[in-house]
């Protein structure tokens, strides 16, 4: 297992790896795929009471890696394999290397599952188009946009695979490059930004409609928001601060009226109220996540996800 999860520096050979480009690697891959698929199909026949332990085991082992890493002695940054020996240190090194292998696993699995999401999108809109239900034209548009983006995205990517070609394309973009650029930067990114900026309108209308002085709480919220906004407006802050400093404090930087400078008020609120308030909420949320993590890791919850 050592060499599997802490992959050796090339071209070191071990039982888990193979030289790239050889037929050995393809044969191994094919065999392992068959084994994997057989395991998958085998799971279909697992009796009901055997199912929960299987899921629990996978979840537990996945979490165990990081939990073990936390409690296992960790080496200082200066330690290298040359200057540090001993079995404890070896395992520590193994943990360091293995993180690089274990880390991306969640990532890879999530990537495989993305297909399921796309499948959901395709069935909903495909059905609507096929049955010519209301708004079928828009569903068709969605599907067409999807495939156009897919087509040009991969065409452009394949063109860039060859390094010589890539350098040339950087100078004069190809048709595919242009098309992908238009679809991605010209449209998708701009629509992202446009949708994001809509929030400004919504904030404005929500503030007009909902921000009323009707309870202690809303008054406090509104008052603080006002002070915060004013302190962000330099054109107000600078003359106000100067007025306080020069006229009221008469230039004395230790005078107490200096506290009335807008930046001082907002900094005081931020240091002594806002920071501890948010910190207190986050302490709670942090403990909530810790407890939830524990319940998931040990599969303690019945009902819901780990039923």
């Amino acid at each position, binding site marked *: 297992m050592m060499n599997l999860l802490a992959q050796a520096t090339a071209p070191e050979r071990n039982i888990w790896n193979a030289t790239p480009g050889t037929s050995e690697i393809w044969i191994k891959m094919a065999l392992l795929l068959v084994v994997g698929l057989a395991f998958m199909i085998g799971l279909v026949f697992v009796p009901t009471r055997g199912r929960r332990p299987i899921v629990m085991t996978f979840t537990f082992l996945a979490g165990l890696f990081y939990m073990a890493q936390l409690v296992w002695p960790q*080496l200082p940054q200066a330690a290298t394999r040359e200057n540090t020996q001993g079995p404890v240190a070896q395992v520590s090194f193994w943990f360091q290397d293995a993180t690089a292998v274990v880390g991306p696993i969640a990532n890879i699995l*999530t990537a495989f599952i993305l297909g399921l999401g796309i499948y959901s999108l395709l069935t909903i809109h495909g059905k609507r188009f096929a049955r010519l239900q209301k708004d079928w034209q828009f569903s068709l548009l969605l599907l067409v946009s999807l495939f156009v983006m897919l087509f040009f995205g991969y065409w452009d990517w394949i063109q860039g695979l060859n390094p010589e070609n890539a350098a040339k394309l950087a100078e004069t973009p190809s048709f595919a490059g242009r098309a992908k650029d238009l679809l991605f930067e010209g449209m998708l990114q701009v629509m992202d930004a446009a949708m994001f900026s809509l*929030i400004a309108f919504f904030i404005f209308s929500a503030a007009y409609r909902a921000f009323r002085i009707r309870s202690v709480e809303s008054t406090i919220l509104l008052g603080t928001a006002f002070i915060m906004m004013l302190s962000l407006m330099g054109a107000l802050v600078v003359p106000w601060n100067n007025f306080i400093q020069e006229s009221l404090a008469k230039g004395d930087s230790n005078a107490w009226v200096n506290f009335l400078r807008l930046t001082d008020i907002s900094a005081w609120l931020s240091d002594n109220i806002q920071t501890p308030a948010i910190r207190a909420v986050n302490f709670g949320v942090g403990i909530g996540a810790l407890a939830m993590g524990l319940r998931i890791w040990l599969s303690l919850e019945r009902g*819901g996800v780990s039923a």
Partner: protein
Amino acid sequence: MDNLYYTNYSYLAWVQIAFVMALMATILVSISISKRRKNLYIRRISGLNAIDEAIGRATEMGKPVLMVPGIGGLDAISVQALNIFAYVTRTAARFANPIRLCVMDAAVYTVAQEIISDVYRKEGLQERYDPDSVRFVSDRQFAFAAGVSGIILREQTAATFFMGAFFAESLIFAETANSIGAIQVASSTQTTQTPFFIAACDYVLIGDEFYAASAYLSREPVLVGSLVGQDFAKLAIISVVVLGSLVTTVQRRGSTGTETVEVQGQSVTRPTFIKPSELVMDKIFNPRPPEEASK
């Protein structure tokens, strides 16, 4: 091996590991205790009492209920949101109310599909279950926002539940739903979004009320026990903070001596005080080998 030290065990660094282990142990112990006890107290959370009311309204109007479990990946937040939505779906299913569950992550979509079909199956209402009611809309934040807004506006959802990790899109959803007069229950674990939910929604769960929700709704011993454990963990944090403040106060009281320094051309004699890096609490909370501490 002579000058080797392990960063998580030397120089008091083990304290932090011991502390987090103790917190986890507290939670586990109170889970196992609560399995034997019944009727544990949970304080009222008004946002959760509003769920039934919101679904009732949707039933009267014959319009769908919309649920969004945040836009994070598959983690405790999404799972917790889906646990709450399992409850919402159960109620909606009994009233034969159509639901829309929009998700942004394919892995969350998988879990959602499973949980929701499970709810209908357990209620014996399988004929009411429509797999298309759980939808993967997009995995891009604002495409998702545009898509969900479209669904809200076109299907005129009467009740909306936004629970989970919400970011900027929170206000797009909340205002869009507000514009069609939907009754809204919302919660974000992102503290920064909570004020916007407060401004635009009818009921808001703040902070870890969200994590308390599934225990509150289901009264399941494991969850309630975990909630009790979480409270004790928070108490532990409070005690550490208070104790640390007291120790620091005692250590920093009084001066350690006097020194004479040049200030703007004049020599001034002033008291000296203990450096923060010499405090006991600093040694515990910022463990480091002696040579680094002396810098």
